[in-house]
């Protein structure tokens, strides 16, 4: 349930596969022109550095992806997070990553109800808003009442699963070419992204994981969850308790005092830590639209995208939080090998470069874990994280690693931590962060 200010006044969206193909073809053309410029520079005697070319192409692709919304944007995000391709614009776009389509008409909402329940909305509820109250990532939210209960009813756009699959198919070859990757290298990532996106279109699954995760996290301080109503839910319709509150981004950008910012930030941090390090199943979409602030509580609304961590992967991934490991060459190399970031057949020089790169980024990313409290209001820290992304974007070793590296599960962990850090930075919250993850 991503809050949007106006469900009606939205930007243009490429809606038909045909026009989406057209948008992608435009990118193709721009990329082509950039190559021409590149060879032009060379012909004129300039150096025509390939890194400039990559940068221009990445920008062109990114622009198109953000126009497309939906599947391609999410895909671009995930690939770019994982490849550490984080242009600064990316951070801004991150918060707009949602499938924004014109709102569904009421007759179509009613038709979806008839198809799912065999009944009209007014047969199930006493009142039902004809207009959508909010847009959601792949649907929209209506407000309904029954007796003295208020409900938020999320209705999915028809054919959205179809359109996601189509988007991914259209975008895959292009993304591969432009990000300079080989099909075989990224196949596991694509499979991972696709299966997660398709899962998001099944509201039955979302209901089950929402109920499960919210019950397992209910004891956390200042964290609240809506009650879910399976009796009014199906694969395309999800009904939960209506909560009045302020969307997290509006709260963060508003004039809240430092104490309440810290309180919400702490709740957010605790919520993610409880999930990742205790439950080992987490809400993998830390988008500001998925949270509301209500009476000093953080309300978590959307469990569409959850990711379970296998015990083995969890230990491999979070061994890097061990402060001793980073400075210990032998252990760091073993750890990177265990995650397939470096491989036994890499030559020494290449290995040294990768290890150095990883050490720098780990130092930075793990910084909040190193102290008792951490001030995410520190603009330098977030800037350093973005800069790290920019730098590695230009780095040939990271752009063109030999063969497949890392683990596909890392995408969601990285995406989640990046999202969490961005939200906390936006909140300018000071958070008690110190923890030793269990079992490390």
């Amino acid at each position, binding site marked *: 349930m991503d809050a949007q200010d106006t469900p009606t006044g939205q930007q243009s969206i490429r*809606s*038909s596969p045909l026009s989406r193909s057209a948008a992608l073809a435009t990118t193709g053309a721009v990329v082509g022109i950039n190559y021409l410029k590149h060879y032009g520079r060379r012909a004129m005697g300039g150096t025509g550095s390939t890194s400039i070319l990559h940068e221009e192409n990445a920008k062109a692709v990114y622009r198109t992806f953000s126009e497309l919304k939906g599947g391609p944007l999410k895909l671009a995000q995930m690939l770019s997070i994982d490849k550490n391709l984080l242009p600064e614009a990316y951070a801004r776009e991150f918060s707009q990553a949602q499938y924004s389509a*014109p709102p*569904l*008409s*009421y*007759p*179509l909402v*009613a*038709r979806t109800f*008839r*198809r799912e329940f065999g009944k*009209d909305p*007014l047969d199930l509820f006493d009142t039902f808003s*004809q207009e959508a109250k909010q847009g959601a990532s792949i649907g929209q939210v209506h407000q309904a009442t029954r007796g003295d209960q208020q409900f938020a009813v999320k209705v999915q*756009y*028809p*054919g959205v699963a*179809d359109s996601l699959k189509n988007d991914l198919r259209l975008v895959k070859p292009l993304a591969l070419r432009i990000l300079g990757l080989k099909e075989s290298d990224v196949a596991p990532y694509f499979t991972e992204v696709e299966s997660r996106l398709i899962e998001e279109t099944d509201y039955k699954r979302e209901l089950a994981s929402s109920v499960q995760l919210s019950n397992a996290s209910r004891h956390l301080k200042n964290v609240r969850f809506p009650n879910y109503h399976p009796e009014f839910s199906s694969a395309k319709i999800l009904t939960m308790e209506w909560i009045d509150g302020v969307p997290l981004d509006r709260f963060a950008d508003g004039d809240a005092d430092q104490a309440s910012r810290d309180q919400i930030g702490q709740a957010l941090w605790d919520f993610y830590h409880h999930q990742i390090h205790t439950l080992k199943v987490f809400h993998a979409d830390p988008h500001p639209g998925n949270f509301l602030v209500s009476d000093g509580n953080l309300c978590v609304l959307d469990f569409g995208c959850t990711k379970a961590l296998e015990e083995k992967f969890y230990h491999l991934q979070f061994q890097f939080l061990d402060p001793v490991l980073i400075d210990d060459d032998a252990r760091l190399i073993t750890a990177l090998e265990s995650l397939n970031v470096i491989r036994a057949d890499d030559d020494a020089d290449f290995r040294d470069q990768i290890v150095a790169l990883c050490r720098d980024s780990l130092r930075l990313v793990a910084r909040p874990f190193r102290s008792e409290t951490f001030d995410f209001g520190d603009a330098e820290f977030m800037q350093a994280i973005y800069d790290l992304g920019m730098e590695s974007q230009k780095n040939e070793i990271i752009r063109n690693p030999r063969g497949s590296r890392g683990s596909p599960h890392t995408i969601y962990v990285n995406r989640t931590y990046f999202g969490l850090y961005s939200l906390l930075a936006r909140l300018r919250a000071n958070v008690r962060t110190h923890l030793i993850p269990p079992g490390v």
Partner: protein
Amino acid sequence: MELSERIIEHYSNHLREHGHPPRSVFRFCKELEITESEFFRTFGSLEAVESELWRAMIERVIGSVSAGPEWESFGARQRTLAFLFAFLEASLDVRSLLLARRELFRPLCRTHAITGFAHAHKRFTADVIAKGQETNEVAERGAIAAVYPEVFLTHLLAVIEFHLADTSAGFERTDAFVEKSVNLAFDLIRVQAVDSAFDLVRFLLPRR
């Protein structure tokens, strides 16, 4: 059951089973065990039976949708959408008939056999347009407004065509097509762009 209903029912069963209309009134009457004069007292031809079949179907949809509790609160756009979705729901019962008689509904070469269907739909559209002018969803365009029913009928036929070709689960793609095309249609008949375009075309038309 009245004779006319029996004739229509038998006619549609024949279509479903054979995929084509009965060859002659004589054979049709034999199958139904009625005399030809009984038939001709009710319908002038087999084509007239077919026409009545489709007219009755669309009238049922219009009747049921406009009797809904929310109908009065709907504007023109919502009425159009509600009608089309109800039509799609009703057409599930006659999908095999529609598939058998697909060529009758080709948007651009409409046949005589759906005249009654077309008339019923145009009357319905005229009401919707009148409602739309009341709610300012439809611009007053004098004589041009007279072609709206024709345009909407062509749109309905395009929806049927799309629906028959649709293989998506639950025909969700048809829903999306209806939603998006109706939105576009109402955007067009509301805004000035069409008037300006029409003005330009009229200006460019060859003079005598």
